[in-house]
């Protein structure tokens, strides 16, 4: 495929068009997209994929602008996939991430793509995994996946990345009660932002709260979760973030956790794809047979129970 070579050469427009393909809901595009991804997967780069999540208002984009600036100043190439939460159900989306990433978006060593989440589960859009494969093949050293931290997003996002980071604000320690368990399993690093000005004391206190809570939930064989203090506005603490990321990656590689995770993620991906195909196939069959209205009527007339109807429809649909 010509597109493959262009992506590997790092041609910006081709990378962008490829991401459009993998995000497209058109059948023809999806076929090309599968072909493309199959080829690209054979030529993997060495990207580290880092996930960033956190509740709205903690300054995720500002942090990424700040941390990203630091990385490009160290000559890293940086790809960013920002899942924009501002979707509406009826209308289109306003994608405003770049208004908060002014400096890095100018830099020739970055590639930044915003995608509307379209209300899909966990704020991860269709195609995010594939988009990260494209950026990996194109030679980006780091790929950031930014999601809005609501509901299940951490869990879904953590299945796409090598290291998962949760950004929180000062004073959020109280929320720990609510998020405690799931979080400790999925996040590797906790970043307390806004460690500046009047909030400094509060930020340190929050970091300490997180540390003690996390040690409480730590499993025996697990690495210690890292809690870092940064100020996106004052650009402090950034060196520490990259140092910590590199340390965790090195350790995980050494212990085989890195490959293990990627293998798990591949399994999850395959499972997901199979489920998707089956689901859409079943949906088609269900509609074409028109069994549901028929049986529903019978249930209404008390000719059979609801569960009986379900059983019959299921058997009928799977039989072929």
């Amino acid at each position: 495929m010509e597109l493959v070579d262009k992506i590997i050469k790092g041609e910006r427009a081709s990378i962008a068009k490829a991401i459009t393909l993998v995000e497209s809901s058109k059948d023809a595009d999806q076929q090309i997209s599968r072909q493309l991804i199959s080829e690209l997967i054979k030529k993997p780069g060495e990207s580290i994929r880092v996930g960033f999540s956190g509740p709205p208002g903690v300054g995720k984009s500002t942090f990424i602008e700040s941390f990203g600036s630091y990385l490009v100043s160290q000559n890293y190439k940086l790809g960013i996939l920002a899942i924009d939460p501002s979707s509406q159900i009826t209308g289109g989306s306003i994608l405003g991430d770049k208004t908060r990433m002014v400096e890095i978006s100018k830099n020739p060593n970055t590639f930044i793509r915003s995608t509307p989440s379209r209300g899909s589960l966990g704020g991860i859009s269709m195609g995010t995994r594939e988009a990260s494969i494209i950026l990996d093949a194109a030679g980006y050293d780091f790929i950031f996946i930014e999601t809005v931290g609501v509901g299940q997003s951490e869990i879904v996002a953590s299945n796409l990345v090598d290291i998962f980071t949760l950004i929180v604000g000062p004073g959020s320690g109280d929320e720990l009660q609510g998020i405690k368990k799931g979080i400790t399993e999925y996040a590797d690093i906790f970043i307390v932002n806004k460690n500046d000005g009047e909030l400094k004391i509060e930020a340190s206190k929050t970091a300490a709260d997180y540390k003690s809570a996390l040690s409480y939930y730590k499993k025996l064989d697990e690495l210690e979760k890292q809690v870092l203090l940064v100020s996106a506005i004052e650009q402090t603490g950034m060196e520490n973030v990259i140092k910590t990321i590199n340390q965790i990656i090195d350790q995980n590689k050494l212990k085989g956790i890195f490959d293990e995770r990627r293998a798990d993620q591949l399994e999850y991906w395959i499972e997901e794809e199979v489920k998707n195909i089956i689901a859409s196939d079943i949906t088609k069959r269900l509609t074409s047979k028109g069994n549901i209205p028929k049986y529903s009527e019978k249930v209404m007339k008390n000719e059979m129970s609801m569960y009986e109807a379900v059983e019959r429809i299921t058997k009928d649909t799977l039989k072929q």
Partner: protein
Amino acid sequence: MTNKSNNGFNTWQKSFEKETKKNFSDAKSETDEGIDIKPVYTKDDLENFSFVQNNSLPGQWPYTRGPKASMYTNRPWTIRQYAGFSTAEESNEFYKKNLESGQKGLSVAFDLPTHRGYDSDDDLVMGDVGKAGVAIDTVEDMKILFNNIPLDQMSVSMTMNGAVLPILASFIVAGEEQGVDRSLLSGTIQNDILKEFMVRNTYIYPPEPSMKIVADIIEFTSKEMPKFNSISISGYHMQEAGADNVLELAYTLADGMEYVRAAMSKGLDVDDFAPRLSFFFAIGTDFFMEIAKLRAARTLWAKIMKDFGAKNERSLILRTHCQTSGVSLTEKDPYNNIIRTSYEAMSAILGGTQSLHTNSFDEAIALPTDESARIARNTQLILQNETGVTKTVDPLAGSYFIENLTEELSKKAWDIIKEIEELGGMTKAVKAGIPKLKIEESATKKQAKVDSGSRVVVGVNKYKNPKEPSVDVRVIDNNRVRDDQIKKIQVIKESRDTKAVEKALTNLTNAAKDETNLLIPCIEAIKLRATVGEVSKALEQVYGRHFAKSLSVSGVYGKHFEGDKEFMKVENKIREFENVNGRRPRVLVVKMGQDGHDRGAKIVATSFADMGFDVDMGPLFQSPKDVAKDAIENDVHAIGVSTLAAGHKTLVPELMRGLKEIDPNSKIIVFVGGIIPEQDYEFLYKNNVSAIFGPGSNIIESAEKVIDLISDNLSKE
């Protein structure tokens, strides 16, 4: 209502209901401010007032009726026309001509690079030099600007907020080198940074250091420049950005309170500086509302200042400049603008303004020509000399309607002011982005009313002119202006004492660290011929440059069109597009260069999104190259460029080049909206612009055109 039992009123009500076939209680019309206007007002509507006092007099508490007892009967308002363009030489010629034709005060418009603290030779400002105002790089330019205009006799108003330190310093030094002591300088510097963060976006530093600079200037002028107004607290730009009158009134006064606190935090007594605070309001087409707004503003400010402990009567009095609304001007059938401006001017006068700028009718298209500026000025001269409005002070006082409206506006504004105070004041509210969002919401509602036809704009959505007149406009060759400025900067940099300048700039940087008054070291640096850009950078080292976060409202526009056929037609086209192409049409909406007026861009973004487009918002102040990268990485179908400051002739071709540089096969189409003279249309089309939308364009029609253009373009592949 006691009158309801009154026979006279009952008879009237019956007649009214018979004539209109409506119940009296349903016969109200709601204004943008959410005030119900009744078809008739009576004596009963003068009761239960909390703010307005029925028997007050002009020049007396609570100053509703005017700051002075005699008002225009003694001296009419000052005709103060805002102007400036290209080089200092050309602006100076223009000023002198205007003064000979009856204008009384000067009001300087600076170009965007100067506002944002960049020198004309900075690469970032290529398209903006000399465009929307005059370019000032050093004190030499300032001296040329006032050549043969004696600064001890002429009051000068300067619209400057971002680069307020080097510009005020240049004005002081220019005066000194004319032989005029700073204590004799009179005029006003806008110095109102809070509203820049809300609407106009010509800030440089973050909110906190910016507030410190405002306070420094109030402190300095209160001690050394007794005839100079240290600040012009401006609601004008809020209304221009779409705020209704209650929002304009409330946010302006809340800004004023914040400045009072900032000055008091420097240890000044409120009466030391409050008499030199001045205001600036917009006057739109809602005739009676605008009159009531000025009366309410004075009433509320007197109360506010009394609460601050002001003892000097002059501290209690709100004095204001007014300007007719720029956003009410239309590109279509432009001579209508003369009529609009005349009525707006009349509102300002009946409201009791101290000075007035009337817009030229061609300002929806370009900067005024000599001829259009003359008509604008004559609008005021006719009011002063022919209509008799100067003969009676506050002639509408006692009108049931006006007094009631003044009270209603005061109440509504007061509620918002209280809300802001509870949030901890305007700096905090601005940082949280609340006022900006409220103004954008109001702007989007107004636009939807016009586009849906529920608000008539003559010549635009009704009574269109079948033969649009063509109008000659002022053309500015900004490349020539830029070259001239660059040469001047070079000459100065070669002849000045470089070491002394460097030292002065270091002193300035240190002063910023020490938190001492910055104007003093700034004057030193300017005197030695440091440039505006150098001074701004010296401070930037300590404060950094501010980048705004952009929040957007959504759903506000679409709500006005539920069930609207045209709106649904576009929605359907977009749905169809998604089915065929596997994604929604995606459009990047941008502003380029130093032009920060983003109302248009924001309205287009939210309304397009409401119709179903995916809309990328670019940050402010992008270069064409940045925009190209952004567009290509997000694989957008189209770029919409919003331009209001005339930089498009440089910036748009630059964008086209940028796109081709990254992707020689780029199929991204570009459309342009905003203030674009018709003379430039051909140039833009030649540069492959696909569509141009002038002021007053219907957004739904524009959206339909854009989706059609995108579909056509894709089918060509």
